[in-house]
Structure formats: C-alpha cells, structure tokens
C-alpha cells in the first residue's frame, strides 16, 4: 500500500509573482503542484492550498484587501473552514489576514524601506502541520522581500494568541518592526498558517539555504497524511 503524491494547489492572482517558485519547490519536495486560477469559483481536488507571494491587484488600497474578494478566495475560505491546510506566504499571509482567516494585520515596515535579504528565524512551535520537520527553537535562514511585513495585533489579541500557542515563527534579528518579532502565525485550529519569509526561495543549498524546505516539506507531509491512500 502506498499513498499517492499529495496534490497542493497554488493560487495565481493578478500580480502574484512567486507562484512559479512555489509550484517548483512543492514539486521538488515530491508533491503534485497544481496551479489554481484566481477567477475559479471552485478548487480542484486538493490536499492543501498555498497562497503565494507577490503584489496581488497592485497592492492597491491595502495589501491583500482586494484579493480576498476574488472568487478563488471564497473557495479557499470554505476549504479552510472544512479543515483543509492553507499556507500563505508574504502576500498570501497578507491576504489571509485581510480575509480574517488569520489574526492580526500586516502594516508598512517601521523603516518604510523595502527589506530584501536572508533573515534568521526561530521556530517557536514544532507541533504544527507547517513546522513538524523543524526542531524546537531551531534557527532557520530564509529570505524576506516585503515592504509591508510589520505584523500587529492590538488590545489583548497578542496575549490570547500566545496563550493558544498561535505564534509559530519569530525573527531572530530586527527586520520590519513586527510586534514581538512575530514572523508567522497559525489560526486557532492549526490548519491555516501565514509567514512573511519565503520558504519557496530556500529549498536548495545552491540558493544559499535549504531551510525553507523544512517548512514546505512539513506541509507536504501533512498533506500526504490527508491524501486518500491507494492500494
């Protein structure tokens, strides 16, 4: 008995520009990577969904504010509501926050400068579908490239998230002014995650780091566990 390759969709919005890297990285990690068009109202049969980085709808109004109303996002929200695995990277994280699928908001970087470099991250939680291959407190080197990555949660929200263990990744160095250096969070149920760094750009040592593969391969593992097995 062997399980088939998990099918992972990558949603392509107008202005996405990391969709091809995400498709390539997922395929390199032994998933069947499937492009999904933003105008499609239904998702194909998938075991997980990735919302890629980029500048959907030109980042007009606020990053992710318009993409969240695209037809495919209604389907992604239903997929997440039914427990499906969803990973948002950079602009994908911004879209998930705007859609209310993840807590908080991503604001312009404190410096107002676009940040584009490798950064060090620390893994706060390894008991998630997205970080199971990491070690507790492991330091990862993964690139960021964003102008609006300053994550913020007002009022008591941050303390509530900490109490529920929803903060998964933190920057181990100053990057964008993010509240308490938060770089990645999960939803309460643990099936939706967003992060500003780009794991899909760090899956091969040739590109400077393969640490991103730990995150994407965790997702592939979790998606495989959910895929129906074939005899």
């Amino acid at each position, binding site marked *: 008995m062997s399980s088939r390759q998990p099918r992972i969709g990558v949603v392509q919005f107008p202005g996405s520009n990391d969709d091809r890297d995400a498709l390539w990285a997922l395929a390199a990690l032994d998933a069947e990577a499937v492009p999904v068009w933003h105008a499609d109202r239904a998702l194909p049969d998938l075991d997980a969904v990735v919302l890629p980085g980029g500048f959907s709808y030109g980042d007009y*109004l606020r990053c992710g504010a318009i993409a969240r109303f695209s037809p495919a996002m209604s389907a992604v929200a239903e997929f997440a509501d039914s427990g499906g695995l969803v990973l948002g990277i950079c602009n994908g994280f911004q879209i998930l926050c705007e859609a209310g699928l993840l807590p908080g908001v991503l604001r312009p970087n404190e410096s107002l400068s676009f940040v584009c470099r490798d950064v060090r991250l620390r893994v706060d939680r390894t008991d998630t579908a997205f970080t199971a291959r990491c070690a507790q407190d492991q330091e990862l080197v993964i690139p960021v490239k964003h102008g609006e990555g300053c994550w913020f949660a007002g009022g008591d929200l941050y303390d509530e998230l900490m109490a529920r263990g929803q903060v998964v990744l933190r920057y181990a160095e100053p990057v964008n002014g993010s509240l308490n250096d938060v770089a990645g969070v999960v939803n309460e149920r643990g099936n939706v995650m967003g992060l500003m760094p780009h794991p899909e750009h760090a899956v091969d040592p040739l590109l400077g780091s393969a640490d991103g593969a730990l995150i994407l391969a965790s997702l592939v593992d979790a998606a495989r566990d959910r895929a129906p097995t074939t005899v």
Partner: protein
Amino acid sequence: MKATVLVRPKQGILDPQGDAVTNSLQHLGFAITDARVGRVIDLDLGDSDREQARASVERMCEQLLANPLIESYEIVLRDNGA
C-alpha cells in the same frame, strides 16, 4: 449623492509615514509636533437617498475601504452639484 471617505490610522497606532512626514516638515522649519497620514476616497453614488447612502458607504468601509483593526473612517456626504 457624493461621499468622501477619510481613512486614518487609529490613535495610538504606529504611523511610520506620518513620522516621516513629521520629520521632513520639521526639517523644512515648520513648527509642527505631529503628522498622521491617511487616505481619501471620493465616491459618486448617483441618485440616492441620504440615509441609504450613508448606510451603504458604512458597509463599504467595514468590508473593504478600512481595516477596522488599525484604521478609523469618517464619511462626509454631500448632494450632487454641491
């Protein structure tokens, strides 16, 4: 009916754009202590009742035009031609 929506960073929310503008104005010698930068959206609602227009624009603000986590909004309505 026409509407102007003013979207502002909420009080107490870090506004790096406003800080940059504050610094630049002070650098130019203007005696200001603070600047906050928001966004203006002008809407043309065609022929519509004032109260219906206000309710409609409020829904637009809640759903799309402002992010209530970090932004407040103000709606100014005026009759066509005004």
